[in-house]
């Protein structure tokens, strides 16, 4: 038996499928974003190339493909080259464990959830390598910010993925989809789903958490030095591939994956991914960018304690009612969301006011002491 050819014939379709998902997301979503964002801002968006501007992403891709590929003389040559490949590992490899239908997964690992978290961490590495290897101050600061933000928001993300494992008692994504036959986990545990969305948006560096790419201060953040096809890798394939794969994981964990009303098919997965992506685009055109201190304290002071509490309470419910813990969990989760919505605005207003007053007081003091109100360079 020729094992190698056997392996290749069964593996290559999966590889091509993964590539197709990434490529499709890199073509569809940037265009969709610009167009929907345009409509949300009451303008047209790109509508010149082809009918309704549908050929715009291809025009962009072709343009970037024939652009000159420059490696800055001071950049670390090999790391600069390898950074897009390392960052592309995340969207390529995470979808390996996502079930597309009841009998098709590219590689059905029985530790799917841990694998999802572990491979998901590669995107931080890619961005950090890109930022450091470029040897540019904007890139370095952008890479560091991305690293700080992504590792901070990874913890609530992981805690809520653990919650799904707790509800199912399995790490296999097929089993998780199977467990959502009667009711989606997004309905049982909406708190976990919302934290997953918020932490994911931060993890993907999208608005309102797009500080690593804050174009008004950092040009383009970690990919400032990248041009031509390498920029296309970062801006289209990696960013939107990550969004797609994160939305795929989210819909598998919380929205029942390929299961849907009337019929079960991979089409439902695509629909759910599209809806989650539209929500991100909606965020993009709605929210202004956060300050970095607000960003970090939101992760560490709100999301992490809340996720820990959620895991503790849900495990308690599973212990108390091993058979039907869905109802108490859902009651707890929905009521805590309601409580959060009622309490959060007044609490955050008080906290922000206190911080502002404290900052003002220290600024007055430094002005008195040193004669200037300005600090050093802060990143």
């Amino acid at each position, binding site marked *: 038996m020729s094992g190698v050819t056997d*392996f290749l014939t*069964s*593996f290559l379709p*999966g*590889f091509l499928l*993964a*590539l197709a998902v990434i490529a499709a997301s890199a073509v569809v979503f940037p265009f969709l974003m610009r167009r929907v964002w345009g409509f949300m801002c009451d303008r047209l968006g790109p509508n010149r190339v082809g009918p309704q501007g549908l050929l715009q992403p291809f025009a962009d891709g072709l343009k970037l*493909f*024939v*652009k*000159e*590929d*420059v490696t*800055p*003389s*001071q950049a670390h040559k090999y790391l600069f*080259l390898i950074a*897009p*490949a390392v960052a592309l*590992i995340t969207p*390529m*490899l995470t979808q*390996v464990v996502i079930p597309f239908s009841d009998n*098709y997964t590219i*590689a*059905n690992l029985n530790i799917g959830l*841990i694998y999802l978290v572990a491979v998901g961490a590669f995107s931080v590495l890619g961005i950090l390598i890109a930022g450091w290897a*470029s040897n*540019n*101050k904007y890139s*370095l*600061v952008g890479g560091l910010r991305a690293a*700080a933000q992504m590792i901070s928001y990874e*913890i609530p993300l*992981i*805690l809520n993925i*653990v919650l799904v*494992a707790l509800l199912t*008692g*399995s*790490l296999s994504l097929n089993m998780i989809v199977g467990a959502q036959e009667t009711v989606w986990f997004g309905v049982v545990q909406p708190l976990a789903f919302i934290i997953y969305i918020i932490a994911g948006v931060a993890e993907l560096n999208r608005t309102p958490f797009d500080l690593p790419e804050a174009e008004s201060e950092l040009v383009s953040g970690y990919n*400032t*030095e990248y041009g031509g*096809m*390498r920029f296309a*890798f970062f801006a289209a394939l990696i960013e939107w591939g990550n969004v797609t794969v994160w939305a795929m994981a989210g819909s598998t964990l919380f929205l029942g994956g390929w299961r849907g009303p009337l019929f079960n098919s991979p089409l439902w997965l695509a629909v759910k991914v599209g809806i989650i992506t539209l929500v991100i685009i909606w965020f993009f055109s709605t929210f202004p960018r956060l300050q970095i*201190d607000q960003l970090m*304290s939101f992760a*560490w*002071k709100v999301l*992490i*304690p809340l996720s820990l509490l959620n*895991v*503790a309470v849900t*495990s*308690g419910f599973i*212990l108390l009612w*091993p058979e039907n813990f869905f109802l108490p969990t859902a009651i707890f989760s929905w009521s805590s969301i309601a409580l959060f919505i009622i309490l959060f605005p007044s609490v955050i207003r008080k906290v922000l006011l206190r911080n502002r007053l404290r*900052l003002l007081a220290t600024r007055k003091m430094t002005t008195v002491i040193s004669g200037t109100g300005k600090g050093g360079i*802060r990143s």
Partner: protein
Amino acid sequence: MTSDYTYSYLAVVAMSLLDIVFVVGILGVSRLVQRRHIYPEKLTPYECGIPPVGDSRAPFAVRYYIFALLFVIFDVEAVFLFPWALVFRTLGGTGFVEMMIFFAVLLVGLIYAWGKGALEWV
């Protein structure tokens, strides 16, 4: 075939290798069709058009290290949590109490860091 244990992991390894081949290959093909005109100024680090000032490997804020340290603690916790979540139903009350003690230790650590001002950015 897809449920085969070794196959799954081999597929993951092959996927990561093919990923690098894909990126380098596309960049290589793009290199063949592009027009190249390189001069020294084009290769300097981008700093909004002015000549670059100082070293780019500049020191950066110590905050990043503190958050990285905190992250390591919580990431280790995540490593504990996954197997616990998996066998939670067989462990029963003991597992619950043990994990709550672990959570309490973690929360004390978080509150300590909070009180010390490690979570303040500026």
